[in-house]
């Protein structure tokens, strides 16, 4: 599995386009963190995860590299979780860089513009990183799941599709005057895309609350489904 993580890191950081994109995002995050609160800025690394996790499995399949890897004594789960951990590892590097830039910026900004900025306390930065990683655990699991059976970058499209669909159900239910539809939509959304108040949990409230339970189940379920699908997948190799 370590080999798979290492390979993922090399694939991402070996791509100039990816490095540039992530660097820009890191700068953006740092700026936002300096102007408002790092905790919020870091905790909202949506775009970065998308970039990193898109096509995590499907690219290997369409590129034809997966057969050579799976011909080796590597369990399919090792490959799959290696990709997952790889996503989180790259994201962790991104967060570290963003945090460092934020600290740098808050030191520099007063001298540049001669004004004080809201303190980018170490506390706030660390909390932001923790919140970002917690969200990433779920987000990456969902994208990984879609990537095991959708082609190319359709996993990203599928995620948006899921979000939109679940978000629209309550409205649809209201419009069609079917409250059960709205309720079903709400249940699905809260269980598949749970919102957790990580900020509150880090301050000591609601660690074992219902949202946490939903989140744990969601992450586990997406990873379990991905495991089942990928373990049973077949790989044809070209034509005769």
């Amino acid at each position, binding site marked *: 599995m370590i*080999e798979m993580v290492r*390979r993922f890191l*090399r*694939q991402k950081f*070996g*791509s100039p386009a990816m490095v540039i994109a992530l660097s820009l995002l890191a700068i953006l995050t740092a700026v936002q963190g300096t102007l408002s609160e790092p905790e919020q800025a870091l905790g909202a690394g949506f775009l970065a995860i998308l970039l990193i996790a898109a096509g995590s499995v499907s690219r290997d399949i369409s*590129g*034809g*590299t*997966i*057969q*050579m*890897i*799976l*011909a*080796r*004594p*590597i*369990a399919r789960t090792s490959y799959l979780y290696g990709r997952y951990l790889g996503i989180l590892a790259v994201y962790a590097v991104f967060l570290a860089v963003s945090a460092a830039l934020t600290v740098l910026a808050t030191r520099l900004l007063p001298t540049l513009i001669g004004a004080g900025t809201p303190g980018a306390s170490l506390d706030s930065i660390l909390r932001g990183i923790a919140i970002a990683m917690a969200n990433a655990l779920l987000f990456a699991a969902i994208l990984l799941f879609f990537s095991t059976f959708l082609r190319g970058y359709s996993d990203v499209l599928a995620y948006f599709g899921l979000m939109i669909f679940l978000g629209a159900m309550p409205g649809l239910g209201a419009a069609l005057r079917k409250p059960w539809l709205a309720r079903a939509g709400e249940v699905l959304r809260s269980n598949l895309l749970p919102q957790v108040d990580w900020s509150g949990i880090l301050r000591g409230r609601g660690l074992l609350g219902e949202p946490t339970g939903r989140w744990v189940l969601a992450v586990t379920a997406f990873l379990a489904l991905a495991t089942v699908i990928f373990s*049973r997948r*077949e*790989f*044809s*190799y*070209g*034509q*005769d």
Partner: protein
Amino acid sequence: MIVVSSLSKTYGRLGRRRVRALDGVSIEVRRGETVGLIGPNGAGKTTLLSCLLGFLRPDSGSVSIGGLPPDDLAIRARTGYMPERLGFDRDLTGGAFLAQHWRLSGGDPREAGRRAAAAAARVGLEGGVLLRKLSGYSRGMLQRIGIAQATLGDPQLLFLDEPASGTDPGGVVIVRDRILEAKGRGATIVLNSHQLPEVEKVCDRVVFLSGGRVAEEQTLRGERPAPRRASIRVAPGRAADAVAALASAGFAPESGSDGAIRVPVASDENLAQALQTLARADVPVFEARSSMDLEDLFRRGGTA
């Protein structure tokens, strides 16, 4: 070692035409045997190989290697695989690629560099080449890296898909050498190929697949090899005399399209007799070759 039993595999989903790639294929490969799979395109060769590697699951029938399912990690640990087209990460250098596969095969990571260099040297790729990215390799170099990767760690099982296609002549020899070397170690080898001369040079047995079925099997080496076909080129204008002489001596000669005379012979001694017959008939022989004539197999289209 490898037992394929009534293997059937169908492709295609709802709405698309379903193709029966394999239809009740049964093959056995003994330990240490080298078997070649030949047949027209679409006959199921690559599908069969994919089933042997655990990439595809059979619809019916079974595949077992050493008594275990093909995707068992213990089997994978003893397998070398060379696909028709090498799959690699674009930014990887040749050396890093070999090292990666060494590590993936369970080899000691500390030896990765040394093993990669050794494997590359054995296929005629010297040091500097390993530092270049695979995306810059020529087709021939990729083929060499492919066989090098497949033979890392001296695997007991080798699966090769078109190992000698489109290579420079030097590459063909190298691939053949590596296969023979593995064979000498007692490895069990299954290979697909369109290069019939190469197949004849390395395989003990040949399986002809057509339309997803085993049309014919022929033993090339071993206790009772199959009858061969001699191809004899005589002096221009003397072909008719040659045919007459051979026919009266009990052979069944045919005129080949390239001007040579094709004669089935039972053995090397039989071939010598045919040549003596021609000598007695005063027909100069310019060239005589005997081979399995797998091309004939193709032309006959199998008995499927």
